[in-house]
Each structure stands twice: as C-alpha cells, then as structure tokens.
C-alpha cells in the first residue's frame, strides 16, 4: 500500500531515468557510474534524484550502534566532543538513535536506527515560519541554520522526534557540519558527502562493520541498489498513515 504512493511518485521521473539508462548502456560501465552520480560542484542539486536510505531491521544488529557513532564522528555531535556538557540527556542533540521495539502481539523484538526520515511532504518544512526548514530538490530535508530563529515549531511538527535544539554554546565544530546554540538540527543525510558523490557516514559504517543493514541511493533511479532492493523485498515507512512519503524506509518491521 505504501509502495503504491511511492511508485506513483517515481513515475514522474521515470522517463528520465529510462533515458539515462538507455544512454548509459552504450558506454563502459565505469564511466556510466560516474556520469549518473557525479554532479559537478557548481551544479545545483536536481529533482531528478531523490536520495533515500533503506534499513533492513532484520540485519540491524542488537547492541550495535556503529551508525550512531559514525554520525557523531562525521558531524561532530554527541559525546565525541563533550561540548554539550551543560545540557541534560533530554536536551542533548541526537541526529540518529538506536531504538529497540517489541511487537505488542507477537513479542518480536527488533532494533533499528532512527533519524530524520527526509519526508517528501515534511511537516517540519510546512510549519517553519522563516523557511529555514527546507527540502532540497533531491529530497534531502535540511535546516538552513542561517535563517532558523529557534522557534522549535518544526520539532512540534515532526512525527519522529527527529530534530534537536541546541541548548548551549558549542565549540570546535566540524567544518562540514556547523552547529550552534539556538538553532534546530537533524540528520542532513550527510549532504556534504552526498554532494561529493559520497555515502552517508552511517551507511558507510554499517557496511564497514559488515552488517550491511543500510542501503543508500537514488530512489528515482530504478537501477540503483536501493530501488532494486525495495522493488524486490519491499520496505515500509514509519507512520505511513500520515502520508509523508518518507525517504528513509524500513524493511522487516
């Protein structure tokens, strides 16, 4: 059911992907890869792509939190620099978290990472008064902290508690992830890496640990790994009832 809306949406760009695939066919595979994915630095992100992550909860290991640690290391939040020393645990930022859930009927226990779902119809963006919460053309939802006034309305609106507010002054931030007091932040889908043709740090870490529970890729490209996985095995949205068409999907829930 969820996939239906999703696919309907994809069909818009279907034509382009097909054309690209057709064009790529004639060329050597390596070159093909670079052409499809590499976007020159001076070119804007386009809506021909929609970045997504698929999380296979069956593969996600209990007790593992490599993805969380990787995100911290990449983006400089959490205990890796103890800059949020004054904030209590409820106040500290949390871009991605590990959650363990038990099915109320079957008692089946699963664990999974939870972060911003990069909704296609993000309520956080709808409510933001200044437009600081925004969705890039390629589906990544970001906070433009330059215009965020710290009203926290987006946090009220997000169904996944994906956002955090910075409750104190920070120091020694990462170059790639400026963060500071009084603004709201959330998982950026490692946009700085994505723009450089990279993979989000969490995904990279999960793979590095050989859990392979996360797939990153272009949801609009039927040939991408993530699309193929979804097509083959399916995947669900959290709170699909809200109709947000999330960019992060879960399998096995």
């Amino acid at each position, binding site marked *: 059911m969820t996939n239906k809306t999703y696919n309907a949406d994809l069909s818009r760009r279907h034509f382009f992907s097909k054309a690209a695939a057709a064009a790529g066919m004639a060329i050597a595979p390596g070159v093909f*890869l*670079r052409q499809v*994915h*590499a*976007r020159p*630095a*001076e*070119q*804007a*992100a386009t809506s021909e792509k929609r970045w997504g992550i698929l999380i296979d909860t069956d593969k996600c290991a209990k007790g593992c939190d490599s993805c969380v640690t990787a995100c911290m290391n990449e983006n400089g939040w959490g205990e890796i620099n103890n800059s949020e020393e004054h904030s209590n645990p409820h106040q500290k930022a949390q871009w991605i978290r590990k959650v363990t859930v038990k099915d109320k009927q079957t008692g089946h226990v699963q664990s999974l990472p939870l972060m911003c779902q990069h909704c296609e119809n993000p309520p956080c963006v709808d409510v933001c008064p200044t437009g600081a919460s*925004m969705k*890039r*053309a*390629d589906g990544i939802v*970001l906070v*433009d*902290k*330059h215009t965020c006034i710290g009203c926290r309305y987006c946090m009220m609106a997000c169904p996944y508690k994906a956002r955090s507010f910075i409750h104190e*002054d*920070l120091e*020694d*931030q*990462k*170059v*790639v992830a*400026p*963060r*500071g*007091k009084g*603004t709201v932040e959330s998982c950026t889908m490692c*946009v*700085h*890496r994505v*723009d*450089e*043709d*990279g*993979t989000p740090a969490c*995904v*990279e870490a999960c*793979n590095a640990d050989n859990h*392979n529970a996360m*797939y*990153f*890729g272009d949801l609009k490209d039927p040939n*991408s*790994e*993530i699309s193929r996985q979804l097509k083959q095995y399916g995947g669900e949205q959290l709170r699909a009832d809200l109709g947000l068409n999330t960019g992060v999907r879960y399998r096995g829930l």
Partner: protein
Amino acid sequence: GDAPAPEIPKAKEKATEEYGCVAPVEYMRKNHMDELMHKRDDTLREGIRTDKFSLAECINCHVTPDEDGQFASFGEDEHFCSTCHNYASVSVDCFSCHRDTPEDTDYRHSFNVGNNPHHGKMALKGN
C-alpha cells in the same frame, strides 16, 4: 599614516595569480559579506559546492598559525576576520556555528575544485 589601522594577517597562499584573493582585494574588502551570504544560500539550498567564496575556504587560507603554530580564534583580535571586524565594530555570528580555524584535515577543502583528490573516491561502496 598615523591613524590606527587593522593589522590584517597575510593569507597562506594565493587563490588567484591576478589578485591574490578569490576576487580583487578591493572588491573583497567591500563585498565579502554579500558574496558569503549568497554563497551560503547556494550551498545550502542548491547544493552548489564550489570553493569560491566558501567560508571554509576563507578560513583555510586566511586563518594562519602564529609562530607557535597556534591559531587565533574569532574571539581574539589576531584572528583574520576579527582584525577588521573589531576595528570596524562589526559583529558577526558566523562563528557560533562555523569553525573559526582550519580543521586539521584537508577533507575536500583544498582549494582547486577540479583537482579534488576525493572526487569519485566515495562512489557507492558496499551497495
């Protein structure tokens, strides 16, 4: 002259042969703020990540270590940006979020776009 003037630290290297900085120095003195603002919107909203007018690049190039190899932070008068900003009483909040010193990695932040050694290296690995 006799008038007190800011002592602006020299940049680490030249961005361009003609004018040193990424644009003529005259122009930079007057207009860097607009360019930075423009650039930040481009980067954040469009995903355009050229290095010209990138704040990270400014810092990389301009914030240079002193004799002891220490970097001044924006709170100190010796920081490249502060030299002028304190002189002209212009406060900016950029560095409440942004690093005010170069990070000790050159992770896709060396200047020349075309030669970025990381380009392509991180193509979808495990997938």
